[in-house]
Every structure is written in C-alpha cells, then in structure tokens.
C-alpha cells in the first residue's frame, strides 16, 4: 500500500468505524453468497464429483499436463531469447541519429504494435505456406510472437533510455567518449537497470502469448488440455487446473518483478520509467 492511498481517508472515528464494520460484514456475506451460488450451480451440474478431480493426480494425466507445461516454457523461453535482443536493437535504431534507420525502426514498431498476434499467426499458418514459406509448427508460433513482442520490448528499452537524465549523455560526451562508448558504458547499463522490472513483467505477456499454440496445434498447455478433454470430457476440470498453473507462474513472475523493482529502488536523477500498468494486455 502506498502512502497516497493511505491518506485518502481519515483515521476513523466511532461512527465511521461502525459504518466500516457494517460494510465489512455485508461485503463478506455478499462475496460468500456469490461463491456459494457458483459452487451450487457447479454441484447441480455434477462438476464437483470427486472422481472428476482426483483423476488429475494420476500419472497419465499429470504427464499430459507436464508435457504441456514443458511446451509452454520452451515456446516462452525461445521467444524471450529472441525478442529481448531484437527489441534492444530496435530501440537503439529508433534512437539513432540517422533518419532512415530511425524511420525503419519506427515503422516496424508501430506496425507490429498495432496488429493482433493471432492474425499474424494465421498468416504464418495459412497464407504463407501457399507461397512456399512453411516453417515447423514451433516456429509458426514463436516467430509471430517474437515479431510482435520485440516491438513492445523496444518501446520499453526506449522509455528507459529516455527516462535517463540528459546530463548522463552530456557528461559522457564531455569526457570524450564516442557515441557507442557512451551508450555502452554510461547510458545502457543505467537504462537496463531502470527497466529491468518491466522487462521481467514482459515475460508474463510472452507466457500468455504462447497460449496461441492452441491455434497452431503446438503442444503447449492449452493444446494439451484440448487433447485431454477430447478423451476424458473433463473440460471444466482440465482448464481450471491449466488456468491455475498459468496464474501461479505469472503471479510468481510479477512478484519477482516487484521485488527487483524494490531492490533496485529509484536513483536520484532519473525519472520513474513506464510501469507495466502502461502496457497493453494483448493476450
């Protein structure tokens, strides 16, 4: 809780305390009623029978889901490995003093930030094979993800460089460093440090985007869930478990990003960079 939210209301007096207590009780009851109604509906439909859930503790089920998780992590990892360097390169190009280079990067970034990932994936899956561009399934998923997310990551890097105090570049020039030297020795180390939490948070987006393996039949979690439900018809159970896995991993990544943010702290002379709140949810 930040200080700003803490001072929105006064230390409560007796009347406000009573009101808070009443609203607390009412809201708890309301939330419990909603949860109860949902569980009752699931129970009526027979979705809460124990056999429907206990099956997921057996080895064959766990193996299918485990393989899916492996596929998800592989696709996410490979996307990150390619998208981060490409994003960094694009950011440098967009900050370049040469106009054609800058325009090229700006065009790329604006284009791939504005078209849906799924459309691009369908293009790689359906349209490009007609022109004899036929990638393996894994790359039909990863290449579009890299194209789209490198544009977003480039903007994150750029925000970091721009958030840095101008004095840093000027000082680097004053002591006689060349352009690349000042980037490598002065600007980039600080800029990357500044956007590190946001970059970690980008992993969440990459992980979510890998769910589109569902559309290209790449065996990640969503597709493995499809495989499982086609045989077992335990659709709700399968996808609830898969959703929980996703939420847990992403929550963990978010916590790591927040911890890094707290640890690095804010250094004087630098404005706060764009936080993940400014990032658009695309998957």
């Amino acid at each position, binding site marked *: 809780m930040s200080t700003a939210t803490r001072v929105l209301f006064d230390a409560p007096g007796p009347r406000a305390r009573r009101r808070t207590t009443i609203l607390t009780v009412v809201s708890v009851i309301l939330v419990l009623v909603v949860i109860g109604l949902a569980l009752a509906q699931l129970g009526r439909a027979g979705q809460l029978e124990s056999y429907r859930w206990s099956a997921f503790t057996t080895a064959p089920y766990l193996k299918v889901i485990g393989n899916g998780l492996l596929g998800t992590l592989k696709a996410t990892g490979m996307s990150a490995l390619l998208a981060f360097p490409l994003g960094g390169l694009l950011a440098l190009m967009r900050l370049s003093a040469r106009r054609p280079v800058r325009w090229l990067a700006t065009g790329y970034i604006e284009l791939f930030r504005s078209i849906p990932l799924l459309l691009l994936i369908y293009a790689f899956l359906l*349209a490009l094979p007609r022109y004899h561009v036929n990638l393996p399934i894994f790359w039909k998923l990863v290449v579009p993800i890299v194209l789209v997310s490198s544009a977003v990551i480039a903007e994150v890097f750029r925000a970091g460089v721009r958030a840095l105090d101008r004095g840093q570049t000027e000082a680097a020039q004053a002591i006689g460093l060349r352009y690349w030297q000042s980037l490598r020795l002065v600007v980039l180390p600080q800029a990357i440090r500044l956007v590190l939490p946001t970059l970690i948070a980008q992993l969440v987006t990459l992980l979510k985007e890998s769910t589109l393996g569902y559309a290209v039949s790449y065996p990640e979690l969503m597709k493995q869930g499809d495989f499982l439900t086609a045989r077992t018809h335990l659709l709700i159970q399968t996808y609830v478990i898969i959703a929980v896995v996703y939420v847990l991993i992403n929550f963990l990544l978010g916590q790591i990003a927040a911890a890094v943010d707290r640890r690095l702290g804010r250094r004087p002379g630098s404005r706060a960079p764009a936080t993940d709140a400014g990032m*658009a949810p695309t998957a």
Partner: protein
Amino acid sequence: MHVITDNLGFLLQGVLVTLELTVLGYVGALVLGTLMAVFRVGPIPPLRVLGTVYVEFFRNIPLLSLLVLVIFGLPDAGVTIGLFASGAICLALSASAFVCEAMRGGINSVSVGQAEAARAIGLSFTQVLRFVILPQAFRTMVQPLVNVFIGVLLSSALAAAVGVPELTNRTEQLNLQYAEAVVCFVFAGVVYLAVALAAGAVGGRLEHRMAIRR
C-alpha cells in the same frame, strides 16, 4: 484483389463485430476496473482483499484460457451465454484488471499533499476522490487507458480462435476458400492498424488538451 471486392460485405461485417466487441469489452472494463480501483484504495478491508485478488487473477490468466472456460466450460455447468456475449464478457474481465492498475497508478501519482489538504478541509473519502484526486489523476491515466483500449482491440482477435465471427475469423475463413489469401490478411491488418493508430492519436490529443501548462 477481387477476393476483397467480392467479399467486402462479409469482411465489413467482421470489422463491425470486432468494433462492437472492442467497445463493449472496453466499456465493461472501465466500469469493472473503476469499481475495483475504488475497492482497492478504499477503507473496507474485505473489499481491498477482493480487489487485490481480482486484479491478480484476471491480470495473470491468459485471455484464451478464460475464453475456453467461459465458452466451452460454462455450458457443462448448465449456464449458457451467447458466443458474442461471452467474448465481450471475457474481454471486459481481463482488461478490467489493467484498467484498475492504470487508475491506481494515476491515483498514486497525485501528490500526497493534495489528499492531506482535502482531508484537512473536512472532505470525506468519496469527496476527496471525486473533487480532488480523480480530476488530477485522470491526466496521467489517459495514456495507459488508451493503451488498454488498443489492447482490447488486439485481443478481441482471440475470439476468432473460439469461433466468434469477427475480422480475424472471417479473414481465416476467406483464406480457406480462396487462393490469393495474402490480400485478406493485408486488408485485416490495415483495418487493425488504422483503428489502433486512430485511438492512439485521439489519446495523444486528449492528453495534450488536459495537460497543465506551467
């Protein structure tokens, strides 16, 4: 090129469905997100917890996973909602978490002194928010909220994967019928690009107009 001219009505219908999904999803997200933001900064402990859990859940669940649960899962639980409505609801739910975070970020960006001064002259929690904090907070929220709009537009394409006949879905259908499919993808891409850039431009103007000149 004739693929597009022959199927212009079909494609425009898809553009319309995409825009409807986007607008409905976005408006829903604004309402839910604002509510959750008020819960999260408010004085009622269980509502704060509810807001936090809600945001962490919907921010971290992939939209596709939510869509599959709602569209294919709910009928198994005896609840049926239309395909289009399900798509709009899922978009609203997942975007509302980002709206909530944008609002909270905006509220936190207003200096503490403002809230203290407002309280010192005797305003209540709702009055502090309504008259002092939110009008100032809204300025810094414009850009993130526009980003959420573009995000909703782009993620509305995911509804294609579960069968909502919007732009991406119709492009895919045409691709199955015709040989020269790349034109359809270019058309769809240009439409998304145009809407996203227009939204960005409107956001930029809005921000410029609301900025305080010192």
